[in-house]
């Protein structure tokens, strides 16, 4: 009933995400100019034929930097979403199905991470060991797994008392089979949808870290860092910082919408 209306919107979202994936993979080949080359002869230039989106304070081509910057935006978020999807699902199934001490321990972890301000942990972390991209991604995985775990555990707990699970138990179907072949297909809708929300969240957090100068090293083309670097140009050349900002919002929104849409699509699979 909804699909008719959301069709074009979802198509646009998929196009955006596909575009970002292409940029993240082939960015350096697609960029018209070298994103690192400084041209002090034309700094803070407004958009022109040579520089479609103008140049920044060091004369670097903004369009090229945006294209290449897709990589740090996408890759880290992808690694976080995929890793925590894997661990969150396995541990969530285990906690929900087995219960007992496994569940108790995992839930303590979830409780502890639940209301921790993620970005703040990353700032403190960066403040102590220095600003580095991949270690921050690793910390973020530890902070994110509980979100997947909680969703999967909750959905699993709903399935466990259902007769089809109990019938499988009484038949003597092994536990791993019940978890992976019986329960998981029924909780996968929320789990997959959640992975997209986690991706959007990780994207926002990582670019926030870069915005603060605590993510990617200085000079790296990255959307968050570009936004921060080019704020002083707002008066003369607003596109320089608004464009990378808009891309962050666009990518995150697309991911969120695709997640919601998938949830709706997948959740009704059993009804057809």
């Amino acid at each position: 009933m909804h699909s008719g209306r959301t069709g074009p919107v979802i198509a646009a979202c998929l196009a955006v995400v596909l575009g970002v994936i292409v940029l993240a993979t082939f960015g350096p080949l697609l960029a018209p100019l070298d994103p690192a080359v400084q041209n002090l002869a034309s700094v803070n230039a407004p958009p022109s034929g040579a520089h479609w989106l103008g140049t920044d304070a060091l004369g670097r081509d903004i369009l090229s930097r945006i294209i290449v910057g897709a990589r740090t935006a996408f890759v880290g978020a992808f690694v976080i979403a995929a890793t925590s999807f894997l661990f969150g699902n396995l541990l969530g199934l285990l906690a929900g199905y087995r219960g007992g001490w496994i569940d108790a321990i995992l839930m303590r972890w979830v409780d502890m991470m639940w209301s921790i301000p993620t970005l703040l942990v990353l700032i403190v972390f960066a403040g102590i060991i220095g600003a580095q991209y991949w270690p921050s991604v690793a910390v973020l995985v530890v902070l994110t797994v509980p979100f997947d775990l909680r969703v999967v555990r909750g959905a699993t707990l709903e399935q466990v008392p259902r007769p089809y699970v109990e019938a499988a138990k009484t038949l003597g179907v092994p536990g791993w089979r019940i978890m992976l072949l019986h329960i998981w297909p029924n909780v996968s809708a929320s789990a997959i949808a959640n992975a997209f929300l986690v991706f959007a969240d990780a994207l926002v957090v990582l670019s926030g870290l870069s915005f603060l100068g605590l993510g990617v090293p200085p000079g790296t083309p990255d959307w968050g860092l570009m936004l921060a670097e080019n704020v002083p140009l707002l008066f003369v050349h607003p596109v320089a910082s608004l464009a990378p900002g808009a891309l962050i919002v666009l990518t995150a929104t697309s991911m969120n919408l695709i997640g919601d849409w998938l949830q709706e699509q997948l959740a009704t699979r059993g009804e057809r």
Partner: protein
Amino acid sequence: MGAGDGSAVVWARPRWAIGGASIRAYVARRLVVLAVLLVAVSFAVFCLLYLAPGNPIDMLLGQRPRTPATVSALTRQYNLDKPFFEQYWLWAWRALHLDFGTSIQTSLPVATEIKARLPTSLFLGCYAFGLATMTGIGLGVQAAVRRGTLVDRFVVSAVVIGLSTPVFVSGVGLLYVFAIQLHWLPAFGKGNGFFDELWHLTLPAIALAVPSTAYILKHARAAMLGVLEQDYIVFARARGLSPWRILFSYALRNALIPVVTMCGLVLSSLIVGAVLTEMTFSVQGIGHLLVQSALAKDIAVIQCVSLLVAVSVMATNLLADVLYLLVDPRIRLGRR
């Protein structure tokens, strides 16, 4: 027939009598847990000094020259010559008296730095919290009541965009539109006096409130939709009660119960947002201080701010849970 034997009960109105004792016991238990957690967190925060690569002395020295005199002064000040756990004990004891050492950036006591910035951050936070709860709940309820209409669809789309818009992007956007293009509101600075401060912090507060508003709105709408489908709403309508009574004392009261439990999450999103907002708008608050300290590896300040945030998050969670207990009789009196 029942009125006769009922009149004795007419005056006996147990309000809180049943739940009072259990609430106190619950809060006491939670406070104990809070205390234990606090010790654990403070220990972790203390350990930050040792997690850093290199020598603690070098960390604490910062840019100052390394001379035997400065080294011995720092060793004495932070008890670095004592055994590890005694160091922690002495550090915790001093932290309890709000002594966190000195900042390597300004050479001022950390507590002084914090005290100077805390009011601004609190002001900004409360401002944004007020905006977020009022618009979030207000619009969420509106959208749920008008489910499926244009208003609802617009609000739902706005929620998705709001949730995906980081504070620094909306901040820069707001700056560009309202301060640079329209000149309606000041771009930077803090202002003097309450109203001037309110004026100056309006743009930052709006930027800060965007994700929390979206979050509250999303949950308030969902909770309200769930409640509106309940049998007790149909039954209330079937009894001819007024729509206003049904909306407020039936739907809204039941819908807000789950929303209360989100306080902890909203606070943590506000804290994260505040750091980014303060950096975007150059507001001299705690978040600004934290980022500067992280960039300068000013460990004493980082420790103090971490502890401050941890305590406020834990306290808010406790408060939210107690509030939940108070507003929901099913939890308070124990389901049969």
